């Protein structure tokens, strides 16, 4: 089996070998560049109170990106901890003289040294400088956190105890909503009991009845006025006076009627539309005032009539 010399054969293998070697060489150069072989290694010393959790290989992290690693750690002559960190020259530009170094020990994952540089325009940190390593140990903050949570829980306990404010408030709210679901709805909720609510509606009913009575009275008086006209003779005697009085009475009646209408509308509004308790309360108060006013005017009217013609039996209108 002697080797047969053939040119394309050798050429292909040569090409393959050359290309492969070239690629491998390029990759090795790239790898050496990536690992910082062509760069100066920047060294940093960190002084720490405790080396707990720090070991060679712990990363130095800037903005979440690893820029270096702990190379070694040991004690200095005074018994202090000195941590030697190595990083590539190109990564050293993130270290400034105002940078702070914090040891982070999260619950999950390994420890890391965090670099915070508040001002990137600050003068750069020289090689081989010594900085202080702060510790942000979450496990040390836990007792404080637990104490605070305990206080909060105590407060909540105090609020929710059996005779506590919260329970009383809730009971009040329960009574209120219970009343609101009663026969007289929100009116009952606002006024406190069905009796009081009924009183309001009753007074409204009575006012309506009174109004119709007054209407009837007015008609009667109209008739009487005509009769009086015929009965009374003199042109400027009682009759004229009476007419003037009657006009006054009608005006008063109109006034009373409009007040009552207003009260009626207000009542509808309060019961049907207003869902807000406070607004409802205001409406009820106004309604009450209107009703009082209407009744007062009606009373005054009846008194007036009484003065002129003492025919009414029951001049008093009573407000329930």
């Amino acid at each position: 089996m002697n080797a047969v010399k053939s040119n394309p054969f050798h050429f292909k293998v040569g090409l393959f070998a050359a290309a492969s070697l070239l690629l491998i060489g390029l990759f090795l150069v790239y790898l050496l560049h990536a690992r910082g072989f062509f760069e100066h290694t920047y060294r940093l010393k960190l002084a720490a109170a405790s080396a707990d959790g720090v070991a060679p290989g712990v990363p130095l992290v800037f903005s979440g990106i690893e820029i270096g690693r702990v190379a070694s750690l040991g004690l200095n002559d005074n018994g202090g901890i000195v941590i030697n960190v190595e990083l590539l020259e190109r990564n050293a530009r993130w270290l400034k003289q105002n940078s702070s170094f914090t040891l982070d020990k999260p619950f999950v994952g390994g420890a890391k040294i965090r670099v915070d540089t508040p001002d990137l325009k600050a003068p750069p940190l020289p090689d081989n400088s010594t900085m202080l390593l702060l510790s942000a140990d979450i496990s040390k903050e836990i007792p404080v956190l637990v104490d605070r949570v305990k206080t909060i829980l105590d407060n909540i306990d105090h609020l929710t105890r059996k005779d506590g404010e919260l329970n009383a408030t809730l009971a009040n709210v329960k009574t209120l909503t219970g009343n609101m679901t009663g026969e007289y709805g929100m009116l009952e909720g606002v006024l406190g009991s069905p009796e009081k609510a009924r009183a309001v509606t009753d007074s409204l009913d009575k006012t309506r009845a009174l109004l119709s009575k007054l209407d009837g009275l007015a008609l009667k008086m109209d008739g009487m006025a005509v009769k009086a006209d015929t009965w009374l003779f003199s042109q400027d005697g009682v009759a004229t006076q009476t007419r003037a009085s009657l006009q006054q009475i009608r005006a008063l009646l109109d006034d009373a009627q409009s007040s009552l209408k207003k009260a009626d509308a207000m009542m509808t509004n309060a019961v049907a539309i207003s869902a807000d308790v406070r607004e409802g309360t205001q409406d009820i108060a106004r309604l009450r005032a209107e009703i009082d006013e209407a009744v007062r005017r009606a009373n005054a009217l009846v008194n007036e009539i009484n003065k002129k013609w003492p025919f009414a039996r029951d001049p008093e209108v009573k407000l329930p």
Partner: protein
Amino acid sequence: MNFFAATLESLGAKLVGWFDVGYGMFAFLARALMLLLDPATWNRATFDVVIKQVYFTAVQILHVFLGYALVISWLIITIILSTAREFGLTEFATEMAIRVLVLELLPFLTALFIALRSGSAINTEVALMRVNNELDALDHCKVPPMQFEFLPRLIGGVVSVVTLATLAGLVALLLAYLSIYGMSMAGFEAFTRTVAKIFDFRIVAGLAMKCALFGLAVTLIPVTAGLETPKKLFMVPVSVLRGMMRVFFAIVAIEVMSLALKYI
């Protein structure tokens, strides 16, 4: 009791058989290495045979192999990336893809590829040469088979597996970069950092060593299995079968060993 003794005997026979095979293999390897160190071996004729072997084992299948590596890499990278995104672990996706593909999967698949294609062919060829007494004839003509037949095959195997695995790894690296960062240089620095983190000296040396061992396994074992063949034609398939089984076990053993050395 009889049965027990028989079981023990068969176990002992098997162990002795394995030992014989292993011893034969390493003795053969030692002879090959001695020859390799002998300056007289390196003449033009040997060199030509080595080149021929490299051509048949690596260059001839380069395009098929690279296409295959491309498809496998693309698949694995896509799976890793989509899974990592789903679980919010994107920052580890690059490292994971490179570790899985370049360090483990591609060298392993390269070894299997070469074993299937060249290993089985070498085993058959050596077994047939032995059955047909060609090896004795060569020896008789002062053409030592070790120098002109076996050593070039071993060298070809090692060179091929190392080169092909490296090329496939480079393809996978390029593909991983393109899959993660697209056609831009934006992620170059982050990617370089990841590459620097993964490929320290130990890893690169271990990878090269592993590939070389793979290359040796897929050629040395078939050659020794072929040489063991009894001089009967019907024993040739049995020899190939045994040889390929051994190659498979050797590849798995090397892979397990490298993983154990790396992570334990």
